[in-house]
C-alpha cells in the first residue's frame, strides 16, 4: 500500500509541473498587451512602459515563468487589476464554490444511488426504463438552461426561492440542484451498471441456489459489492462539480471561483486567471488522487494490479 501511495505521489510531480506550464503559457498567448490594458485608455507610452517593467512583462517568457513560479511558491503573486494577493481573492471565492459543490454532491449522490439501486434491482422493467430514460435526460440538459427553467418556475412564477445571489440557505437550493443534475444521472447509471454486474457473479448464483431470499441477497451481497466503485464515481464527480461550476455560478450570480475566473478573462487579469485555473486543476488532480487511494483501501486488488 505504501509503495502504491509513493508511486502515485511521484507521478503527481510531472503532472503538476505540466499543469503550471500549460496554465502559464495559455495566459501568455492572449492577444492584446496587458500593460496597455492595465494602464488604461488615456495612458502615455511611458506609463505603459513603467507598468510593463514593474510586472516583469518585458522579460523573456522562460524568465517570466520562473519569476511567476517563485512568486507563487513564496505566496505573493498579485492580481494585475486589484494588486491584491491572488490567493486572497481566490480562496474566499473557492470556499463559496466548495460550499455549493458539497451541497450539490450530497443531493446528487443520494438521488443517484437511490434511483440507481431501484433501476438495478428492478432491471428491465418499466421502473428501470423510466429511471434510465430520465438519467439520459439529466445528462443532456444544458446546466444553464436547467438553471433558467428552475429560476422561471421557482423564482419568477412561484416566488418561493430567490433567483440568485448568496445569502440564506434558500439561495443555495436552485444552484445546487442545477449543478448536480447531470451528476446524479451519471451516478444513477453507474450504480445500476455495477449492480447488474454483481448480479452476474457466480457467488450470487450460488446464493440463489442455496435458496436465500432475494431480498437478503440484494441487501447483503449485491449492494455491498456494487457500491464500492460508486465511491470512485462520487469522488470524481465531486472534482468535476468544482471545476464545472462556472456556468451554474454565472446563471445564479453565485460568487464562486469559476465566476471569478470568467470575470477576470474580460478584464485580462492574467495572474488571477493563471493561478485560478491552476488552483482548480491542482485541486482536481488531488481529489482524483484521494479517490484512487480510497478505492485502493476499499478494494485491495487495485493496488496489487498497479504495484
Amino acid at each position, binding site marked *: 500500500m505504501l509503495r502504491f501511495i509513493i508511486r502515485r505521489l511521484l507521478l503527481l510531480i510531472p503532472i503538476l509541473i505540466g499543469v503550471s506550464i500549460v*496554465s502559464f503559457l495559455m495566459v501568455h498567448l492572449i492577444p492584446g498587451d496587458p500593460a496597455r490594458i492595465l494602464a488604461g485608455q488615456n495612458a502615455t507610452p511611458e506609463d505603459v512602459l513603467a507598468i510593463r517593467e514593474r510586472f516583469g512583462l518585458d522579460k523573456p517568457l522562460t524568465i517570466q515563468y520562473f519569476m511567476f513560479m517563485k512568486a507563487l511558491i513564496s505566496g505573493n503573486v498579485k492580481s494585475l487589476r486589484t494588486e491584491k494577493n491572488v490567493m486572497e481573492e481566490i480562496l474566499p471565492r473557492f470556499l463559496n464554490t466548495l460550499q455549493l459543490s458539497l451541497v450539490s454532491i450530497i443531493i446528487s449522490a443520494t438521488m443517484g444511488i437511490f434511483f440507481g439501486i431501484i433501476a438495478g434491482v428492478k432491471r428491465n422493467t418499466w421502473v428501470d426504463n423510466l429511471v434510465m430514460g430520465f438519467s439520459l435526460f439529466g445528462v443532456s440538459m*444544458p446546466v444553464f438552461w436547467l438553471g433558467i427553467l428552475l429560476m*422561471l418556475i421557482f423564482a*419568477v412564477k412561484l416566488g418561493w426561492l430567490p433567483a440568485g445571489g448568496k445569502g440564506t440557505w434558500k439561495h443555495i437550493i436552485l444552484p445546487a440542484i442545477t449543478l448536480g443534475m447531470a451528476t446524479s444521472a451519471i451516478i444513477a447509471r453507474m450504480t445500476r451498471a455495477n449492480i447488474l454486474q454483481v448480479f*452476474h457473479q457466480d457467488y450470487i448464483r450460488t446464493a440463489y441456489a442455496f435458496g436465500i431470499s432475494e431480498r437478503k441477497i440484494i441487501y447483503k451481497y449485491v449492494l455491498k459489492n456494487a457500491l464500492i466503485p460508486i465511491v470512485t464515481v462520487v469522488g470524481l464527480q465531486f472534482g468535476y462539480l468544482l*471545476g464545472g461550476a462556472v*456556468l451554474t455560478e454565472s446563471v445564479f450570480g453565485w460568487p464562486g471561483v469559476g465566476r471569478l475566473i*470568467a470575470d477576470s478573462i474580460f478584464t485580462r487579469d492574467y495572474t488571477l486567471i493563471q493561478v485560478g485555473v491552476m488552483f482548480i486543476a491542482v485541486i482536481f*488532480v488531488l481529489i482524483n488522487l484521494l479517490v484512487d487511494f480510497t478505492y485502493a483501501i476499499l478494494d485491495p486488488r487495485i493496488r496489487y494490479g498497479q504495484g
Partner: protein
Amino acid sequence: MVRGDSLMKTANLEITNVIWKRIKKNRMAQVGAYLTIFFIIIAIFAPIISPYDPTEQHFEDSLQGPSWKHFFGTDIYGRDVFSRVIYGARTSLKIAAIAVSISLIIGSLLGAIAGFFGRFIDEIIMRFFDILLAFPSILLAIAIMTILGAGDKNLIIALAVYSIPQFARIARSSVLSVKRNEYIDAARAIGEGPWSILFRYIIPNSFAPVLVQASMRMATAILGISGLGFLGLGVKPPTPEWGTDLSLALTYLYVAPHLGIFPGLAIFLVVMGFNYLGDGLNDALNPRLKDR
C-alpha cells in the same frame, strides 16, 4: 491479398447490416437517430424553413410573446426567435461536427499509435494528455477562447483540444485489446510492417468504441458551444447561436420568459438525440452488455 480484401469488405458489410438491425430493434437508439436526423435536416434547410432573416432587427416588435406572426416570439432587438432557433441548429451542428471530426482523427490516431507502439511513445503521448485532462474541460475551453477570441474557427480549436485526449484514451484501450488477436500475429508473420498492420487491421477493427464516443462527443461539443456562448465566448454576434441567445434571455427573464425556453429546448433535444444514439450504438456494438 486482393481476395483477402474483398472478403474483409463482405464481412464489413455484414457487420454493418447486423448493427443496423440491432439499432432498429433498440427504441432509444431509434429516437436518438430520428432526433439527430431531424436537426440535421433543419440545419440544412434553415433558409427555406425560417420565415425571417435571423439577424434582421425590428425594434417596433421588440420582446413580443409567441404569436402566429412569430411562433417563438421576438427578442429585445425584435428578431424572430423561431428563425434564430432554426439557424442556431446550423451554427451548432456545423461547428460541433468539424470539431469532433478533427479530434476524432487526431485523437484516435495518436491513441492508436500510443497503444500499438507502447513503451516511451505511449508514455509521452498519454502523459501529455493526462496534463490536458487535469484541467476541467470548460475552464480549458474558456481559457483557449479568451486567448484566441470569439469566432467559429477558434471555437472549433477550443472544443477539439479537450476532445482529443478523450478519443486518444478510447482508441488506445481499444487498440490494446485488438492487438492481442491472433490475426495480428498472422499479419506480422507474413511480413507486414508495423504501420501497415496499424492502418489495415488494427484501426479498422478498433473503430467501434470510437464511433460510440463520436456520437457522445457531438453531444458534449454542442453543450460546450452553447456553454461558451452563454458566457459570451462563443460565435461572433449577431450569428444565431442557442447559448448566446439564452444569456440574452437571462437579462429579460421577468419581462419575456418565453426567451428562456426555446433555444434551451433545442440544445436539450439535439444533445439528447446524440446521447441516445451513442447509447444505442454502444448496445448494438457490444451485444454482450445488453442483457446486463
